[in-house]
């Protein structure tokens, strides 16, 4: 019997475990999924918590309950992976030997990489919406904010869901309008990028949307220190931005055990992975997906979902001794909540940046355009997440490969990704 070990029971670990359980009988393979806690957070919901549009209890469910029967769930911290001997060492000394290892351990918020971030003022004047606790505390602060300088800052890329900080700005604009104090608030988005977003066409659209809403944009600002008492962001090149209320998205790293497992990850602890097969560069027995993988595409649930299909097929092929399927194309899509019950959709891959048009075909949801329909799509997605995506069921019309029909492809091609 083959032993499959999955590290992480979030989006990627769960959907891969459930799909693998259907691909192999219990006599063919054992599947064990390890995580450090039993709380599966629907992470897209975090954005809505500070605005009172979601409550923490609604977006958290037990991890074990999302796993199919026949998948063993084990609570524990991973100490390290011994890639050469194919053994996972847990912190409590337990050992898990494997024939196939799937690293789906996501990313970790590296608060410690920014001086002062969680020092004095944290939870009073400085918050993040990337953790459930701080998102809830931020909600209380937003409800009583009397106006002043409000700053939203991304410390460094990559981050989970690169559009979320922009969505947060749009929702804050809407929220302060609703509270009748928008004119009292000076809203600024501070990014290390040279534009509102990473890719030119979307950056142009999104930058325009910030401007329309009177949201200031500060680019190429690399935050080195946060002064939560004085209310200042300080960059490495010694520029300063003052704030009365600051929302900071911390830098991200991979899971700590990746750094403790020689050869597995890059300098930030993300797993070095083939971009098309999702096999690790460290060993043919190891695969990685989602936020944990060092790939040149967004860290987002949709990416993890599309990768999952290819990864499961490749685990099957690897164990059967067949050549791997190199078909993952970097497909990603994201709903971008824009406030006032509207949203926008973007769809892209390694080679094609987000363009205008429709998804998944000429008749479908409009791309790069604010509509109420896209907002409904975003809300409906939460149901699909728990009931289709995690159980590993195919969603009709939504495929791993990026659709080209319906897109205005002439706009501008992205540079080819080299392997």
């Amino acid at each position: 019997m083959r032993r499959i070990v999955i590290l992480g029971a979030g989006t990627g670990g769960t959907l891969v475990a459930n799909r693998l359980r259907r691909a192999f009988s219990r006599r063919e393979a054992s599947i064990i999924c390890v995580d450090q806690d039993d709380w599966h957070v629907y992470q897209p919901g975090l954005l809505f918590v500070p605005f009172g549009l979601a409550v923490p209890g609604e977006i958290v469910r037990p991890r074990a309950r999302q796993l199919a029967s026949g998948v063993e769930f084990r609570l524990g911290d991973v100490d390290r992976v011994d890639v050469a001997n194919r053994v996972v060492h847990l912190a409590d000394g337990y050992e898990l030997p494997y024939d196939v290892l799937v690293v789906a351990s996501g990313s970790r918020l590296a608060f410690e990489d920014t001086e002062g971030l969680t020092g004095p003022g944290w939870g009073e004047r400085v918050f993040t919406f990337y953790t459930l606790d701080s998102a809830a505390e931020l909600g209380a602060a937003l409800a009583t904010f009397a106006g002043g300088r409000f700053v939203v800052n991304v410390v460094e890329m990559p981050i989970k869901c690169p559009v979320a900080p922009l969505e947060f700005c749009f929702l804050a604009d809407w929220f302060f309008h609703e509270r009748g104090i928008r004119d009292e608030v000076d809203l600024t988005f501070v990014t290390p990028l040279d534009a509102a977003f990473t890719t030119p066409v979307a950056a142009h659209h999104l930058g325009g949307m910030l401007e329309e809403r009177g949201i200031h944009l500060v680019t190429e600002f690399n935050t080195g220190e946060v002064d939560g008492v004085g209310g200042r962001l300080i960059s490495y090149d010694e520029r300063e931005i003052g704030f009365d209320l600051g929302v900071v998205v911390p830098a991200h790293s991979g899971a700590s055990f990746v750094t403790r497992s020689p050869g597995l990850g890059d300098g930030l602890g993300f797993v070095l992975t083939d971009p098309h097969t999702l096999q690790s560069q460290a060993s043919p027995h190891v695969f990685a997906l989602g936020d944990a993988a060092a790939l040149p595409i967004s860290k987002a649930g949709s990416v993890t979902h599309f990768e999952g299909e290819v990864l499961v097929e490749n685990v099957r092929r690897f164990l059967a001794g067949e050549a791997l399927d190199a078909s993952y194309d970097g497909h990603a899509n994201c709903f971008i909540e824009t406030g006032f019950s509207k949203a926008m959709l973007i769809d892209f891959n390694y080679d094609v940046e987000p363009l205008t048009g429709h998804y998944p075909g000429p008749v479908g949801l409009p791309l790069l355009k604010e509509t109420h329909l896209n907002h409904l799509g975003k809300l409906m997605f939460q149901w699909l997440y728990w009931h289709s995506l995690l159980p590993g069921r195919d969603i009709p019309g939504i495929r791993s490969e990026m659709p080209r029909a319906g897109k205005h492809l002439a706009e501008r091609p992205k540079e080819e990704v080299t392997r």
Partner: protein
Amino acid sequence: MSVDTIDGVQVHLNDEGFFTDPTEWREEMVPALARREGIEDLTDRHWMVIRFMRAQYEAKGTGPSVRELGKTSGVAIKELYQLFPKGPAKLAAKIAGIPKPRGCI
């Protein structure tokens, strides 16, 4: 894309000034490339970072981000900003003749 002459040799650069073909780069071009970015005095510390960027690119196909550079190059982030003001990863990548560090999507 434009054709440029660095140190008497023709090379191809994109709109932002990054090499489109990293194999056209030679270590002898470094002082001239650095001057174009406003760095007149190249110290051993500059060279250490430039060589590290180049080696990382050759090993992994992409240059590291600033934070990764700070964790792995042996030069702390604050010093990186003193050596390459404004944007160490971008500036050092241009001088090392490698594409703009990606992973920032």
